[in-house]
């Protein structure tokens, strides 16, 4: 299958105040693939991920230069609506963060606000489909009215994925989605990611190299704000080009 670049970034630089956190990142993220970002703490992988849906706009001291295009559209164009960008690019966070509302409302809120569906059966259907896609439907179908915060951590994280899917994005960004979860929940989410890449482009930041090796089609290794190496996951893990990548993967630093 022909791979197509979904997200293109060119010479992306970011400063937090005086501190430069990203030193010109050039990266192509391919459609319907899972791309993993790995690297030691503070290497800029999460920062870069948050540039992809402009979450860094929320940090007043962050300053960004360079270009990110999604499907050829510049997302840092001053005339575009940042809310529309985030609608197309969903995000799942490290800590499961469902709204303190019912499971149903958690999934239905954003689609209703975006006028994707109307209240009623249309909305019910979307909630059901989203929860099914997130592999949560069977577990919660009888308690849709109970609070989204009352289910287990792994279920909460899948609820957050269902919530992101319900907005019908093209890309799902995941910022260490399993680091707060137990191994069994982690496995469920990893299987889910592989299923979801049929429909979505997935970018995942992870501290867990085995996870990158297990699920990612492509892996990018970041170090001190630089993108050191980007390639197919197999090549990165079996035959890395750079010494630093090899050192990190073999556990010599990090």
């Amino acid at each position: 299958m022909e791979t197509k670049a979904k997200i293109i970034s060119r010479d992306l630089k970011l400063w937090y105040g005086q501190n430069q956190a990203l030193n010109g990142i050039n990266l192509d993220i391919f459609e319907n693939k899972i791309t993993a970002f790995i690297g030691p703490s503070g290497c800029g992988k999460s920062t870069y991920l948050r540039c992809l849906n402009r979450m860094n706009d929320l940090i007043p001291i962050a300053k960004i230069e360079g270009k990110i295009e999604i499907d050829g559209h510049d997302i840092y164009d001053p005339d575009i609506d940042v809310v529309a960008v985030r609608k197309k690019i969903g995000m799942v966070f490290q800590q499961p963060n469902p709204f303190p509302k019912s499971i149903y409302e958690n999934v239905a809120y954003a689609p209703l606000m975006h006028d994707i569906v109307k209240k009623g059966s249309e909305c019910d259907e979307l909630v059901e489909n989203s929860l099914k896609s997130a592999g949560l439907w069977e577990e919660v179908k009888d308690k849709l009215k109970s609070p989204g915060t009352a289910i287990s951590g792994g279920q909460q994280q899948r609820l957050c994925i269902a919530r992101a899917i319900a907005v019908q994005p093209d890309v799902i960004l995941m910022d260490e989605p399993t680091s707060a979860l137990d191994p069994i929940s982690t496995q469920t989410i990893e299987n889910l990611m592989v299923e979801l890449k049929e429909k979505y482009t997935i970018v995942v930041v992870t501290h867990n190299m085995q996870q990158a090796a297990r699920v990612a089609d492509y892996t990018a290794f970041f170090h001190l704000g630089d993108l050191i190496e980007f390639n197919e996951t197999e090549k990165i893990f079996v035959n890395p080009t750079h010494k630093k990548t090899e050192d990190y993967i073999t556990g010599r630093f990090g």
Partner: protein
Amino acid sequence: MNQNNNYFHIPQIKKRNQKAARFQILATSAIIVAMSFLAFFLFDIIGKGYPAFKQSYVKVEIHIDEETASNPYGLLDREMTAIVSRAWLRTLPKEIGENPQWIGTTQTFWAMTGAEIDQYLKSKPNRVKDNIKVKVDELKANGDIESRFNIIFFFTGDSKIPENAGFYSAMIGSVLTMLVTMIIAVPIGIMTAIYLEEFAPDNKFTQFIEVNINNLAAIPSILFGLLGLAIFINFFGLPRSSALVGGMTLALMSLPIIIVSAKAALKSVPESIRQAGYGLGLTKWQITRDHVLPIAMPGMLTGSIIALAQAIGETAPLIIVGMIAFVPDAPTSVMSAATVMPAQIYTWSGMPELAYIEKTAAAIIVLLTVLLSLNTIAIVLRKKFTKRF
């Protein structure tokens, strides 16, 4: 000396335990002292105040004719005139005017006793003459004197005749004043907090405003009274002593407290909730309205209720805007002259008649009850609406 060979034994253990025990005793005794002051205060106030909820009434028989109808003071013999309340005698001609069929007949009334007689019947210090005391005892023995629930205290306004003085106009005044305060301070305060916490850019100007709001919360309340006098009365020409001016003055005073507590409530909403919203492409307003505010609401309500409870008990700024006035009739609008509960307490506490002592204490009981209920509501609301994560 007994040598302890246990491996876990350390020589300092005794001293350390003593230190811990000493600290515990100090802390406990501090609480006990505070609690006993409170208990003493409550005991004293309730003991002094509860007799005021009773008022004694005396049975009188009066022969009514044309002449006595217009001049009630000659109706009774000297002894009974000393026993029956002047205030009751004063209202008699009006009552006769409403019931003209009484003229030429003898009617039996249960009349309020004078405050001094009431005090004597409650075995309190009084200035009742000995011959009157004998007469009162005689009436009491015959069952012609009864002690009843004091409706007057709750349903009439202030009076210079102690037995006729009630708390009603002060209560209505407080309600009107608080309505004005609430309508102004709560929405403005909460909206200011939302703006400062969620929307305002974090720059020097915002910080300057926030520092000044914090400072305002610590300003002596009497200065807000002067501000109210200068702005609302002198500049805008609003009526003195009115619930409108008093309420607006108290609103100025409550605003910083409401803003500070509402800001704290918003700050306690986890950032992850906002992040979740942004990640879904929601606008700032949608996130604030539907996700942040519901979580912060119990805290904001609690803060507002506590600020209003503080305003209800406030006296100093209201003295400056003239709400300490003698108000016999309950205010009918926010523009008419009014007084408030704490101001009424202050007025009564300075009255020379002994009967006002128990009125003052009774008024304090009413005020405390209102304050305690408000605080209870605040606690219940917080417990009920707080969301768990």
